[in-house]
Structure formats: C-alpha cells, structure tokens
C-alpha cells in the first residue's frame, strides 16, 4: 500500500467541476496553500475545476489560498463560520454582488457536522443556534427540559489537508494549532488529499502520536517548506 503521489497535479487528479471541497485550516494555520494554488493553476489553464463549494472555517484572506480561488472565479458557494478576515475583499465583493453563496454555520456545529459525516452519524442535537436566525426552520427537540436543534452531517467529495509528517500508509501528524479542522475533514471526504511537509517511513511516526490514522487518507504528496498564508498575506503576495 503506497498512498504517495509524485506531485501536486497527480495529487489533485479527479477534483472536478461542481464538487464540494473541504479545505483544512483556521485562518492561515493549516491552510494547504500549495494544493490550493495548484488547483488555481489548473483552473486558469483548463477552466476546471469550477463551480466549487468550499467548506472551511473562513472565506479567505488577501490574495492567496481560498481568497485567490474566489478571485479566480472557481467558487460558487462557501460553507463557513467566519467569512471575515484581515483582508476579506475577495469574498466580500463577490458576496455583496450576489455572485457567491454563503451558508453560515456556528463554528462548533460546523466541526461536529463534519465529524458526524466522517463517523456515520447522519444527525445530532446541539444547543448552538437555538432561538437564532441560524437555526430557523430546523427541527428542535427537548431533552431533560432543555431544547436543542437538529443538525445534519456534512460530507464532501474532496478534502485538501496540510499535515506535518506522513507515511506511505497515510498516517498523519499536524503542526501545533494547524491541526484544527483537518483531522475531521480527512474523515468526512470521499477523497482525502494531503500535502505533508515530510514523508517518513512507516513506523517513524509513533503509533501513539498519530493524529489521523491512514484509513482516512487517500493520497499524500510531499511539499517541503510549505508556504504560510499569514506570511504570504503580510508580504502582499497575490496568486
């Protein structure tokens, strides 16, 4: 079993028009910049993949990563909890022009919906959002005299993940707070594509320290010295 692929293009094979794509990261921490930029390059060269639904905590920052995908016109809709950022122009302009869809989800509900998608739990009750505009129209139920909102699982066609270490079986570790949504998204996508800062031999990752077991991973591509969204932003880089 060898989930390694040679390059970003091979890693992204099969990401097509109209797909739902989970993108790991919280702000710039954990954003798989090289995978995103390779997808943009393909879109610019071939016109595909377009009409994507992105699932991320945020909606991009500056002119790189998710923001650059929006700028390129690849994104039809975003499911996120917090579409504001230091430089939210890309999303804001399209959103106010009615050119991009938004499903706003409370952050904990977003995380739990993705986990549920990966764990085979089609629906669960949560107190979050109860009595607010974000729960309008959703079923509610009472348990022990408290009311809760019924929320559905969230799955995706593809997950794009940035990891720290990986082996050929797809076992992953993450770097510090770059972990965030990535282990959940790896579980919830039909095709989980990982860029890892380093690929090591099986056994080199302590079995106790594996955060994402390989069963959740389909492809791994090594990207040494990955770019960091926040650093690119501050350097004024556009992709």
């Amino acid at each position, binding site marked *: 079993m060898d989930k390694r692929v040679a390059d970003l293009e091979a890693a992204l094979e099969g990401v097509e028009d109209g797909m739902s794509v989970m993108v790991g990261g919280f702000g710039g921490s954990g954003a798989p910049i090289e995978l995103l930029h390779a997808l943009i390059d393909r879109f610019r060269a071939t016109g595909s993949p377009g009409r994507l639904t992105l699932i991320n905590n945020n909606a991009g920052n500056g002119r790189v990563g998710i923001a650059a995908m929006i700028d390129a016109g690849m994104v039809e809709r975003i499911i996120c909890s917090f579409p504001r950022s230091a430089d939210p122009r890309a999303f804001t302009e399209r959103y106010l022009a009615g050119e991009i869809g938004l499903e706003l989800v409370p952050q904990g509900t977003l995380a739990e919906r993705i986990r549920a998608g990966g764990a085979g739990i089609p629906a669960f009750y949560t107190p979050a959002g109860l009595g607010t505009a974000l729960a309008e129209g959703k079923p509610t139920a009472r348990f022990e005299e408290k009311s809760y909102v019924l929320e559905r699982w969230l799955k995706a066609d593809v997950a794009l993940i940035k990891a720290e270490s990986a082996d050929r079986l797809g076992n992953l570790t993450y770097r510090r707070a770059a*972990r965030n949504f990535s282990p959940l998204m790896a579980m919830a996508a039909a095709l989980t594509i990982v860029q890892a800062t380093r690929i090591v031999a099986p056994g080199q990752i302590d079995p106790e320290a594996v*955060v994402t077991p390989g069963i959740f991973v389909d492809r791994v591509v090594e990207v040494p010295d990955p770019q960091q969204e926040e650093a690119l932003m501050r350097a004024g880089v556009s992709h």
Partner: protein
Amino acid sequence: MKDNKLSNAQIAWRAAQDIADGAYVNLGIGFPEMVARFAPEGREAIFHTENGVLNFGEAPAEGEEDWDLINAGKKAITLKPGAAFFHHADSFAMVRGGHLDVAILGAYEVAETGDLANWSTGRGGVPAVGGAMDLVHGARRIAVVTEHVTKDGRPKLVERCSLPLTGVGCVTRVYTSLAVIDIDANRFVLREKLAHISLEALQALTGAKLVIEGGVSDLVVPEI
C-alpha cells in the same frame, strides 16, 4: 479615568477579578482578549481557544510569531508548560460539554432576559458568527464585557434585543464601562457602579430597569 468611564482595559481588569484559581476560561475575539492580562496574583487560569489550544500565554514579540500558533482571533500566541493541542471537534466538546468555567464575550446588546446579540448588526454586509453560538450554551458562566452605551449613546443593555440573537437567556453578568450588573430571574441586578455616577444617571443610560438588591458597591479599578 477618561471621560468618567472605564477604559476597555479597566473593564477587562474588573472581569478578571472574578476568575477563580484553576478556572478554564475562553475569551471572545477582540477586547475580551485583554482579560488574560489581568489575572490576579496567585491565581492560575487556563485559557482555551476554539481553534484547538489549551493553556496558551502572552503574544510573542513582534517578529517572533509562529503563524501555526494562533488564537481564535488569528493573533499569534505562545504556549505555557502543560499546553495541549486538539482538533476542532474536541475543542467544541470542551465548549458544548460544559467543561469551561467561564466565557467572557463582547456584545452589541444584552437583554435583561440574558439574551445576547453579538454576531450581526443586522444591517447587511457579511455576517460572521464563529464560535459564539456554541460558547453561550457551553461555558458554565457567560459574562459580557462592553461599553455601557453605543458610540452614539444608545443603551446596549436593553429589555429585548433588537439585533439578531447569538443566544437566548445565557448571560449572567455584564461588566460595562460604568457598572457591574448581574442578570437574575430576567432582571438586571446592579452590583457595582462608578462612584461619581448617580443611580438615576445610570438608569437613564440603561434600556431596562436596574434592580437594587442587597446593596450596590463602588466599582473601583486601578489606573491601567
């Protein structure tokens, strides 16, 4: 004291005095983050951030940032010994599961019913909610730090919120630039106020009745 009211730092200081030793605390994005600076001597609070860190410390020096080590406001942080990383589902298990002792959040409006509005100005633009709707139902105690009135002088403490709600009946204490107010049985119960403000003046700046119960202390904070 500028303009006869507390600065944000002073409001944060006052809120910090109510954090018990050993408490697990989540601070909202922006001004509530300042609370962490004022933990009283001899008490150790452990701070949680939604994006998967427990027991983080001060911001690093400029130029020393590691952008994979940030808080929910996307600001660079540092770690204290005994920190832990975890993914978002575990992070919100801590929130939703009632494991946090207190969350201290900002507010657009707080109602005497404990309703909180702090995510949408209702004026169009781009809505954003983040973790606030989870926090208001998760932490054992929800406190708010806020100016007493809006920039144009309208009350932020009201009978019923006019803006889209974050949570229903969740806030139990409000630290404002003028007073400390508990919410109890759908009433604003005044606990402390700045000495120079009369009850009448404070009531005039408040959009719902202030109840007095068991006495009102002076709100005293250091110059910061």
